[in-house]
């Protein structure tokens, strides 16, 4: 589809009006002023409806007994384009791998969601959440406990009403 050009004809000078146009403008602004419908969203009281595909603060899913689902396979730090995930894996007596250190730097993260896509056990997720202001910079490196504490819904990487993106 080509660019559409709308040619606006300038009115003939003898027919243009400044005053009437100004008065029309005044009437328009007055109508808007008394119109009670406002577009402002009163943010802290009115929360934004996030898309089910919103990619925000990470969530680490846990098993029923409180252990992280992560098996320290190392796929997420490998795939992470921003290199913001630090993972040190370990192995317990039963031979199950688990993360000893799992840190995500939310400042470096670009919220692409590839860690969630690549995770074979659906442990790490990006979440539907964005309010993560802090008073100091070091608070932005989320460790494993903090990632497991996050209680906001995790992201569906598709829209349930439109799963094939049609």
């Amino acid at each position, binding site marked *: 589809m080509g660019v559409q050009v709308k040619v606006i004809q*300038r009115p*003939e*000078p*003898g*027919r*243009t*009006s*400044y*005053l*009437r146009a*100004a008065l029309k*403008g*005044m009437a*328009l*602004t*007055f109508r*808007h*002023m*008394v*119109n009670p*419908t*406002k*577009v*402002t969203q*009163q943010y802290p009281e009115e929360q934004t409806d996030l898309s089910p595909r919103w990619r925000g603060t990470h969530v680490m899913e846990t098993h029923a007994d409180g252990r992280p689902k992560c098996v320290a396979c190392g796929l997420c730090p490998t795939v992470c384009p921003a290199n913001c995930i630090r993972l040190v894996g370990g192995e317990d007596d039963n031979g199950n791998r688990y993360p000893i250190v799992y840190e995500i730097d939310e400042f470096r993260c670009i919220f692409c969601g590839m860690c969630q896509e690549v995770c074979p056990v659906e442990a790490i997720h990006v979440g539907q959440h964005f309010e993560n202001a802090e008073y100091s910079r070091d608070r932005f490196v989320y460790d494993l406990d903090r990632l497991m504490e996050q209680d906001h819904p995790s992201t569906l990487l598709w829209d349930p009403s439109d799963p094939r993106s049609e």
Partner: protein
Amino acid sequence: MEPISGVPAVLAMLGKIVGIFTAVMIVVAYTTYAERRVSAWIQDRHGPNRVGPFGLLQPIADGIKNILKEETMPATANRFWFVLGPMLSIIPALVAIAVVPFAAPLPTPWGVVDMVVADVPIGVLWVLAIGSLGIYGIVISGWASNNKYAFLGALRASAQMVSYEVALGLALIATLMLAGNVTLTEMVWQQQQLDWWYAFPLSLAFILFVISAFAETNRLPFDMPEAESELVTGYHTEYSAMKFSMFFIAEYAHMMTASALMATLFLGGWDIPFATWDDAYYWQGQYISGFDEAGAPIAASLAAWKSLATYAVFSLKTAFFLFLYIWVRWTLPRFRYDQVMTLGWKVMLPVSLAYVMVVASTILVLDYLEIPYGFVFGLVLTVVSGLCTLGFLFFLDRDRVIAGAAVPHRLDRPVRMPDTRVPGPAIRGD
């Protein structure tokens, strides 16, 4: 009842000064709030509504913020004039309101107090003189900033103020001729006697005065001195914190003075419409509310509640003009600089000059016919002025004055655009 005198008079004067100063500062603070709320509503937003109920404490928060912010001083600025500029800007804005009467005289046990800070005999001239001093603050601060945008803003301000002061003064002359006096108290009284507010018998002067007042207070659509899109913010580009705040207060105080003046000169000041019980004037040693058929004065009955009612009416009229300022600002775009000058010198000046002539001849004819100063007198002037106004609006409305840059000025003369195409190389085979 006698006017107040002696020590109580001094105390009353001090009370009025403190009261008016406080009132002006509060009105200025809440005009900034109103400006933000109204502009928000016009743009389908809410505006500041967080600090206190409905955001009513916002001006206080802004004041605290401005006091606590860092004062910057450009390294190349002229220190003395840089600091002096904001002061020179704010003082005339606050002083000019002193001569505007804001209510009917108030009776007290010690005598009658005139509800005006200084009823100086040169009333209107005082306002004009002090109002023009405001330009010094702008020019000096723009120059002392040593910044080209500030300097351009100052230059524009001075040119614009000079241009529109002429039209402002000429529009005033019509009212002065009709009132026969320059004292604002007397102008209110004359409007009560005429049974017409001067906005009607002098409608064209009213329109010219409002336009000039907009230009004089540097408000949109005439805010050339601080045209953000062209000059950063013009003359106060280099100012921060409380110094900037002083310019801000000065602008709004100017607005308020101009609004109060327009209300007094053209909308009858504190006069309550369609009522004569509020009329009061100090005439030859007594307070009178008018003259009977034989020309004998009728004593006025003053009361505190009447003063209060007239004060409320005066506030309403002033608030109307303040609202008009805000409403116009958020509707009309800024003029181009040459359009401002064209409007000032080629339209406002000749029109106001011609109008002064028309009003003068009409008053002369009416005096010659010995028509008494009253309703009929005002009616004739209203008709004459109405015709002038219609002609003026017709003239202004046909785009003979303000045209876009690309619009040819006349239809009968086709516009020849210069042929700027570069002749290309000849195509082979031509």
